[in-house]
């Protein structure tokens, strides 16, 4: 058994965006003010990024599907 196909660089880059936003950049957004819609900034930031992560992964999905079509993979 050998290594499988590596994910494309573009899809990986899209996957790194949520990591940067929700994990690595924590010192930038971990504060209470400004509160948005009555919710502390840090919690609001994470809630927004749950939705935006789904958007990023949807884009990564398109990238991978387009690549598979090009490679002639039928799945």
């Amino acid at each position, binding site marked *: *058994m*050998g*290594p*499988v*196909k*590596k*994910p494309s660089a573009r*899809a*990986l880059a899209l*996957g790194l965006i*949520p*990591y940067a936003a*929700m*994990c*690595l950049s*924590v*010192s930038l957004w*971990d*504060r*209470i*003010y400004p*509160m948005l*819609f*009555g*919710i*502390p900034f*840090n*919690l609001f930031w*994470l*809630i927004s*990024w*749950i*939705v935006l*992560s*789904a958007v*990023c*992964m*949807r884009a*990564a*999905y398109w990238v*991978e599907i387009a690549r598979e079509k090009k*490679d002639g*993979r039928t*799945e």
Partner: protein
Amino acid sequence: MSPSAVSMTTIFAIVAIGATIGILAGVRRKMDLEQWTVGGRGFGAVLMYLLMAGEVYTTFAFLGASGWAYSRGGPTLYIMAYLTLAYVVSFFMLPEIWELGRKYGMQTQSDFFSVRYGNRYLAGFVCLVGIASFIPYLQLQLTGLGIIVSIASFDGIGRTPAMVISVALLAAFVFVSGVRAVAWVSVLKDVLMVVAAVTIGIGIPNIYFGGIGPMFAALAHSHPAHLTMPGATASLGHTWYISTVLLTSLGFYMWPHTFGAAFTAKSGDTLRRNAVVMPLYTLTLAFILFAGFTAVMVVPGLANGDLALLTVVRKSFPPWFLGVVGGAGALTAMVPASIFILTAATLFAKNLYRPIFAPSMTDDQVAKLARVMVVALGVVSLCLAIYTSTTLVSLLLIGYAGVTQFFPGVVLGLYWKRVTASAVFAGMIAGVAASIFLMLSHRDPLFGWSAGFVALCLNFLITIFLSLLTPAVCEASQPRVRGSNSAPRSNSGRIVNRRPATGSICELEDIQ
């Protein structure tokens, strides 16, 4: 009817409906090993989503997340981040694992290590660490279930009877219907849990403060430090947050049951689609956090933060709704507990007992043994949950740190052809040993870093270093194959030696 009778009846009704759904789920199918453990690899997107949501949102999400919001404050945000990021990891890894699973007939995580590395001691070790990590997690579910049912029934049902009844029911539906039961019971559990979470998360701030906004304004005023990190703790700051989110999001799909769930999918594409929509389910957690933060001001001074959510619900809602929360909470413990038992039983029978004691067993005999193990594991975990109750959380964290040590072996095994079995084995042992040592000697967090993360870095370094030390050679048992879809076609390949600057790399190249 007294309030206690109302809520008890509701809880019983919900749990009984759940168990019935579970038993009916597989009763008309022929349950061979493949059907029982991975549902015949036929789960489409919807069932897959439900199964994964079912096993992800455990009693920890229900009681633990609100408990942390109550007792620790800001650090609880890590839960929202890591669950979302775990799906990002799954997007890249699970479809490839599924692909290999279909090709080589894998049903468990241990199968993956056995096929990829061809080393049965490594596969056995993975199996043992996996089962050992399950035990505290299972125990935690049952203890949580006892707490939920006893509080929600106004102490009408004791913790022990609640645990005994639910283990008997879940063992029954797993025994009969396997993984299909788990997925279908999840349907009821997920619907109830989302309804309960949203109602509680909006309702409780509304009752006491007139809305979520005023509640946070009041909390920011009365406890200014509670809402950011490190909150009410001394050491859970930003370094801890980053290292813990990395550790838990990378490790999430290393649990034997989450890893194994990948094999139930109909296609790799199902898993990828699933990874795109799963993060949205994490939004439910926000509502549970709202309730936990409200509890800080409504029921201050509880010794055990895990009780905060239910205490405040009991104080604020009518008995029938408490019964719904209790029933949802009970199913929230039973669904994950049943998948743990199913996975551990399969691992034991297929990857530990058969290779070591009875190599000649047929798949049907393995399936029979696994079913017997379901009953045995149910009894063992019940005894543990009834007779031991302390340090569960620290045991759980050791479990997490333990299974995360599989990550280098999985990810390098998938994407790097030079990684060797002995390097993975050495790295894994070092990682497991380091995390157990650091945690038992109370060095977690270590200089602000999560101990499991430190152990994972050590594991990675050792695995990569030892793999690079081993000269690349051609092995007949472990053909290195180039290309994506050509893995098992080693017979049609020829061996090609290439000599780049770093040394020789042997590859099989297709001659089609």
